[in-house]
């Protein structure tokens, strides 16, 4: 019976929210220095002669599309695990006739979801984006090497006050490309002092880092 009700409700929602049954993919592009980030490629910032990235994963949640400051679509998936190695995670499927100029989303997982037990799908702890020793999702994970073979790790997360790392982001659609969202890592990656920065738990440093990431995207 509950299944039947759920089925009718989902029918209703689909009818309300789908102006066109045809779908297209919006591509999320992760950029540094105006170019798509490439894994294991050598980069440089003020703190390191060279650094390379070998892991980049993060959650985006509550994704909403806007056109002229009006919400036109709330994305059906509340949580998306973006993984630079997984092409499919960088595709957002929306109705082909949806017009939008801006998107709003959160980087990370909200407090309620962090406190309500086992979840599946993108929230499955099996993806390595969950701290097993201290309940809570890792909102953002960046790992790699700097100055040849030194490892760096930034696991940014934490939802408890005053170190709640959930960040709101508002970005404009890329001008030249109709269906592309570019997330700009310039400010964030340029701010990383690899010798000092290692973040593996919630706290002050994680909060600071999440702020910088949001600034970088905005």
């Amino acid at each position: 019976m509950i299944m039947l009700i759920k089925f009718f409700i989902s029918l209703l929602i689909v009818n309300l929210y789908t102006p066109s049954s045809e779908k297209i993919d919006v591509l999320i592009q992760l950029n540094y220095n105006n170019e798509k980030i490439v894994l294991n490629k050598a980069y440089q910032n003020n703190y390191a002669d060279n650094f390379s990235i070998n892991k980049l994963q993060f959650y985006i949640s509550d994704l909403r599309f806007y056109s002229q400051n009006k919400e036109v679509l709330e994305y059906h998936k509340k949580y998306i695990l973006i993984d630079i190695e997984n092409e499919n995670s960088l595709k957002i499927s929306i109705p082909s006739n949806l017009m939008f100029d801006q998107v709003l989303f959160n980087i990370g997982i909200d407090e309620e979801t962090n406190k309500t037990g086992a979840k599946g799908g993108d929230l499955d702890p099996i993806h390595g984006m969950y701290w097993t020793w201290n309940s809570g999702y890792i909102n953002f994970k960046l790992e790699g090497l700097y100055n040849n073979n030194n490892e760096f790790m930034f696991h940014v997360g934490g939802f408890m006050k005053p170190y709640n790392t959930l960040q709101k982001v508002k970005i404009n659609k890329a001008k030249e490309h109709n269906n592309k969202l570019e997330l700009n890592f310039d400010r964030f990656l340029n701010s990383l002092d690899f010798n000092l920065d290692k973040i593996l738990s919630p706290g002050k440093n994680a909060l600071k880092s999440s702020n910088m990431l949001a600034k970088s995207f905005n």
Partner: protein
Amino acid sequence: MKRFISLLIIFLIIKLIFHLHKQNNFLNYPNYFPKIEYDFSNNQLSKEKIELGKILFYDPILSKNNQVSCASCHSSYNAFAHTDHKLSHGIYDQIGVRNAPSLFNLAWQREFMWDGAINHLDMQALAPINSKTEMGETTKGLINKLQKTNYYPKLFHDAFKDSIIKTEYLLKSLSQFQLTLISANSKYDSVIKGVTKFNTKEKNGYELFKNNCNSCHTEPLFTSYDYKNNGIQEDSLLKDLGRFEITQNIKEKYLFKVPSLRNLKYSYPYMHDGRMKKLQTVIEHYSDIEIDNKFIKLNSKEKIDLIAFLLTLNDREFTLNKDHKFPSKLIEVLYQ
């Protein structure tokens, strides 16, 4: 149409009442217990899920070398604690950093571990499974191992109608078994129910308890689940900062979760690092120090009476409960 809707509503109400009744059948607890904390709406109890959780709890497959199970450190005979071990033992003879706590009345508990690091019962099992000094597995490795056995896909299918094993099913079934571990049949409980009476010593001890201990070890669960500094000094080797390690709040240094006083007979040694072997040592400790601006001053007779009362919180029936013991189904699969 109206008639249809009202019939539908009545049907749903009946279904809800039936459902609530069904949940209560699995959880037998007295009416003076407070409201349950665990939210069953995301994990409704079923016979198959509880049984699966029990098999997983006793199966050493959860550890990397298939030698350590949950029950290795949480034995039913000891109220699911690890009697006579100060710190938990893990794979390859490793020693952990804290005393394995007893497990019961978990449906009333909000946070888990001595520092409350885990905020939901479902997520608790991930900690020992992934800890290098306990089970040394990875969540992914464990799911793969379970999927490859010739019995777990069927057991998961029986419970969750899906033979593709998922972390969520693993965690929820482990929760279900642990939620059934209810200890409420001590002498204290019989007295509260009016079935029996305390003797003189126990009665005196109960009065002393109410005046001196009840604010932290609150009846009827005998814990408030708050975090407190109980005055024991930092261990120079373990350097355990307690709740501070989770909240980074300087005021919460050396705070640890208040444990329940039920089943003390079976769950020694005491404290987060198991430093006190005897109940008497614990009482002596509290007679010496100031906690929450209060001194607990007890003379030697009062100490004896207080211990007499504390011993009425032992629940022998709980430690002997056959429903909680090593499942025969696991013997079949382990030795087939």
